[in-house]
């Protein structure tokens, strides 16, 4: 009997050996003859250079000059580090950085808490989940201008719905945008409302990565919910939580549209952020040199934040 079988087995083995040999060979040859990436990344890099990198170099150059974009015929005057020194010693600028910082801290922490709450509610399947999830996701799909303008209607002392809720208790119209504190709170509320769903999405994606067998093991061991959360679930979502924190921090740092449409920096300059300050300097006062210098300072801040973000992503990849 066995002769046939033996030969087939041998034959089979032979073939598989051969295949193994080829595949090893091919992967070696593959990596040696692998094409250079240059031509593939060149078109994208060209577009990025033209629209991002070159203008950035221009703005570094201009930041050393006194230059107005509305008077192109007046030659720029060299100031050296003048613009930067001017900015660093300007108490108003520090106020804008503080405003921005306070808004980021409040808004991002609310987004994390609300986003986590929403993720907790929505991570299980239930009938109609797709539809209910859409209700929550809509704010981040709206244009910021629509959100900003509508929130400014909500905050209107006469016609606004916020005032309508407060009036029965105080007997007077309430102007949320009237004082620096309440104006900041109003902005934070709009920003947090819009972007908490984004944090929820990140956390939902993170929860998808929690393996069911670990949760079951924790249940078999009768671990308490609290303990189960910290030992099984939290380690799995720590990465996305960090991503959410950093991504939202950077995006809030860049916040412009909502401020522009809701408070326009007021009352006074109390809700002016770095972005709106750059806008005013560049497109209202047309002080291009100074605006570029302020822009470069904010780019520096963002590079530092991105560096941290990048680290977090890499740590996540290594952990996975």
């Amino acid at each position: 009997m066995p002769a046939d079988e033996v030969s087939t087995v041998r034959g089979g083995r032979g073939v598989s050996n051969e295949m193994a040999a080829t595949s090893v060979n091919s992967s070696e040859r593959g990596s040696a003859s692998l094409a250079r990436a240059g031509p593939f990344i060149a078109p994208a890099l060209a577009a990025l250079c033209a629209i991002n990198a070159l203008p950035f170099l221009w703005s570094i150059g201009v930041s050393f000059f006194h230059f107005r974009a509305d008077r192109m015929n007046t030659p720029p005057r060299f100031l050296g580090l003048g613009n930067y020194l001017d900015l660093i010693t300007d108490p108003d600028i520090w106020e804008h950085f503080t405003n921005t910082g306070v808004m980021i801290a409040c808004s991002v922490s609310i987004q994390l808490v609300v986003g986590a709450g929403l993720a907790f509610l929505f991570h299980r399947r239930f009938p109609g989940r797709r539809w209910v999830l859409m209700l929550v996701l809509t704010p981040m799909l709206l244009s910021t201008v629509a959100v900003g303008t509508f929130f400014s209607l909500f905050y209107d002392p006469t016609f606004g719905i916020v005032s309508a809720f407060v009036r029965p208790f105080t007997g007077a119209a309430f102007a949320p945008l009237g004082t620096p504190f309440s104006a900041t709170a109003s902005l934070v509320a709009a920003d947090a409302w819009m972007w908490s769903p984004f944090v929820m999405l990140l956390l939902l994606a993170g929860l998808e990565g929690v393996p069911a067998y670990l949760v079951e093991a924790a249940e078999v061991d009768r671990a308490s919910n609290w303990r189960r959360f910290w030992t099984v679930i939290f380690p799995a979502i720590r990465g996305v939580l960090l991503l959410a924190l950093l991504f939202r921090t950077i995006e809030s740092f860049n916040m412009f549209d909502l401020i522009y449409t809701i408070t326009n920096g007021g009352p006074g300059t109390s809700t002016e952020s770095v972005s709106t300050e750059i806008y005013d300097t560049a497109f209202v006062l047309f002080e291009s040199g100074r605006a570029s210098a302020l822009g470069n300072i904010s780019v520096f801040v963002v590079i530092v934040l991105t560096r941290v973000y990048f680290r977090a992503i890499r740590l996540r990849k290594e952990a996975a």
Partner: protein
Amino acid sequence: MEEVESFPTRRPAGLGRTLVAALVGLVYFFPVVWMILAAFKTRADALATPPKLFFTPTLEHFWASFHRLSADGARVLDTGLERNFANSIGISLTSVGLALILGAIAAYGFARLRLAGRDYYMFYILVLRMVPPITAIVPLYFLFRVTGLGGSYAAIVLVYTAFNLPFAIWMLKSFMDELHLPIEEAARLDGSSEMKILWRICLPQMRAGIAATAIIAFVFTWNDFLFSLLLTSVDTRTVPVAMTRVVGADVGVDWGVFAAIGTIYLLPVLLIAFFLQDQLTRGATFGTVPR
């Protein structure tokens, strides 16, 4: 990679959680409902104190978004909003399409081919996406004035393409990293060019990833305000900027018209998001969370 069943898909939610989730969803959605209702209210109803929840709906604002009466009331004129809508659609689709094509090719280079300093490139590409848009606009505004491209379709499409590219590269690379390599290696052995492998083997396998990238990039471009505000002209203006013109009208804010435009403008993204909901989840993470 072995398929590990993940914990949320396992368990259905209890009745209590379902009800709370539905309730929270409705409360969260309330401001949007308020906007949509305002689109159907007459001016008197919209500004009533206390605010009205029940009223006789009207479609006049939808009509008024696109038409207006001439000063003597005799002729019906165009508000030019059709043009803004056409601009929004055209500019968004073109720039997202371009970003996807350039992004896919670059992502393939980063994911598969030989490149020194790959991480270095990837980091600075990410930085470009994070830079405050207003900072980038100051020099761009000047650049476009000097080159005479200011206010043209080419300028704004190029800007949106470049701002979607970093995201497209990161996302698409992360999806490519997850593909199984043996098929590609076999094709390479058969002498297929790298381009052919990308188009014929890689991309067809990652349709969901492309959809995820496209939807996030589309929502960003569709809703962007700042670039459009400063880099478009009357002819190339998109809807978000046109919306603010309604607010600035001399008769005061026409809330009904504003709400009507906002509602129409929301519809397309809402539909896309509904059908590509799972992709939206993936896209929010920049593709950094493996599936």
